[in-house]
C-alpha cells in the first residue's frame, strides 16, 4: 500500500459513495449539449455541421465545473494540510487525486458522448475519432485543470476565476479534439490530430503534477 494507491482508493471510494457527483457532471454535459438545438434551431444540417465542436465545448465546460472537486473540499476541511504533511512527495499525492478525478469525470463523459452525438446528428464517421480524441484529451483536461484548481484555493469565489484561468489553456486540446472529429467527417484521416493530443497528454503528465504541487504548497501556507 503506497501513498498513491491508498489515496486513489479513498478518492474512488468517496466518489462511489457520492456517486451523484459524477452523475451531475454527466448531466451537465447532457443538458448543456441539449440546450444547443433550442438555441440555434433544430435544422439537421446546421447541427451536423457544429456537432463535433459543440460536444467538445460542452465536455470541456462540464469537466471545468468538476475541477474544484479535486482540492476544494479537502482544502476547506483541513485534509489538504494533512496530505501535505504525509512526508511523501507532494507531486505523487496530487497525481493520485488527479487520476481519481479523471476516472470519475473524464471516463463518464467519454461513455455518454456517443449518446449525445446522436442527438446532434454527428455523422457516423465521427464517432470513433470523437471517442479516441476524448480518451486522449480528457487526461490533459484533468491535469491542466488541477493546476488551476490548486491555484484558486483560498480565493473567494474560485469557480469562475478557475474558468478564466484554465479555459484559455484548454484551447489547444479543443482545437485538435474538434478537428479530429471534423477530419473524419470530411474524409481526412484523424491520425495527426490524435497524435498531437497524445503529445499534449504526455507533456501534461510530466509537467502538471509539479506545478500543482507547488500551487498546493503555497495554498496551505
Amino acid at each position, binding site marked *: 500500500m503506497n501513498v498513491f494507491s491508498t489515496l486513489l482508493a479513498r478518492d474512488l471510494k468517496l466518489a462511489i459513495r457520492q456517486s451523484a457527483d459524477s452523475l451531475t457532471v454527466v448531466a451537465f454535459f447532457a443538458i448543456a449539449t441539449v440546450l444547443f438545438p433550442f438555441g440555434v434551431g433544430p435544422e439537421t444540417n446546421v447541427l451536423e455541421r457544429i456537432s463535433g465542436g459543440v460536444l467538445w465545448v460542452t465536455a470541456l465546460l462540464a469537466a471545468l465545473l468538476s475541477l474544484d472537486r479535486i482540492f476544494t473540499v479537502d482544502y476547506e476541511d*483541513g485534509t489538504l494540510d494533512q496530505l501535505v*504533511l*504525509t512526508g511523501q512527495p*507532494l507531486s505523487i499525492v496530487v497525481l493520485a487525486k488527479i487520476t481519481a478525478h479523471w476516472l470519475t469525470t473524464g471516463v463518464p463523459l467519454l461513455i455518454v458522448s456517443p449518446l449525445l452525438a446522436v442527438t446532434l446528428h454527428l455523422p457516423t464517421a465521427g464517432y470513433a475519432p470523437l471517442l479516441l480524441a476524448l480518451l486522449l484529451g480528457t487526461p490533459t483536461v484533468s491535469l491542466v485543470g488541477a493546476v488551476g484548481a490548486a491555484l484558486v484555493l483560498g480565493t473567494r469565489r474560485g469557480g469562475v476565476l478557475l474558468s478564466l484561468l484554465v479555459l484559455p489553456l484548454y484551447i489547444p486540446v479543443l482545437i485538435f479534439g474538434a478537428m479530429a472529429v471534423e477530419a473524419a467527417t470530411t474524409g481526412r484521416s484523424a491520425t495527426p490530430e490524435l497524435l498531437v493530443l497524445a503529445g499534449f497528454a504526455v507533456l501534461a503528465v510530466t509537467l502538471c503534477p509539479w506545478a500543482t504541487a507547488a500551487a498546493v504548497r503555497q495554498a496551505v501556507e
Partner: protein
Amino acid sequence: MSGDSFTAGTFSGSNLACRRGGRLVFTGLAFSLPAGGALILRGANGSGKTTLLRLMAGLIPPTAGHLAWSDQPLDDSDEHAAKLRFVSHLDAVKPALSVAENLSFWSALWSGRIDDAATLRAMDAFGLRHLATFPGRLLSAGQRHRLALARLLVAPAPLWLLDEPGNALDEASLGALTAAIADHRGRGGSVVVASHGSAFVNDGNTLDVGTFTPKTAVHWSDDADEESAA
C-alpha cells in the same frame, strides 16, 4: 504504538520571525523541546499561536530564523513532516466515510499498511468505538473533534502539534486527551499545545507568544522598502 518509543531528539527553533498578510506576527522567537517534553503556547487572541504551530509543522516557511532537530537545521520538509502529527481547528473528517474508515485511511497513509488494531485502539482511547460505523456527517462538533484527536494514535510519530485541542470536548474526553498526551510523553514523544485554558499536561514549559509581537510601528527607511514589498 504498543510499547515502541521514540528517538527523535530535541526539536528547537531559533530567532524565528513570521510575517502574515504583510505584518510581522512575531519576531525573535526561540524554543527548545526535548524528547518527552511539552511546550504550552499562551497568548491573547491574535498573538500568533496558530501561526507558530503551522510554522513548526513546516506549512509556513519562517520569514527569519530556522527550525532544527537535535541542532541539525531542517532542510527536507518531507522528512520533517513524517515526524509529526498536527491537529488544527479543522477536523479533516470526511462526512461520507464512517468513523472507522476515516481513521483507517490515515493509518494506511502514514504507516503504509492496514492496521486494524491501531484503529481500534485509537477509537477506544477517545470513546468512539460505539460510533465506528457512524458516518462523519452525523457527528456533533465534539465527536468530530474527538475523531481528529484519535488520528494521533493510528500511526506513531514523535512530535504532536495541537491547536486548542480542548475545544468542544466534554469532561470524559478531556480526561482521555490528558491520558493520551501523558502516554505519548512517557514513550519519549513530545508535544506542543496552544490553549487558552487547561493545557492537558502535568508539567511543561510555557511560551507566551504575545511577548514576541513587535510592539511599535516599524520605522521605515528607504532601504527597508524592498524588503517590505515581499
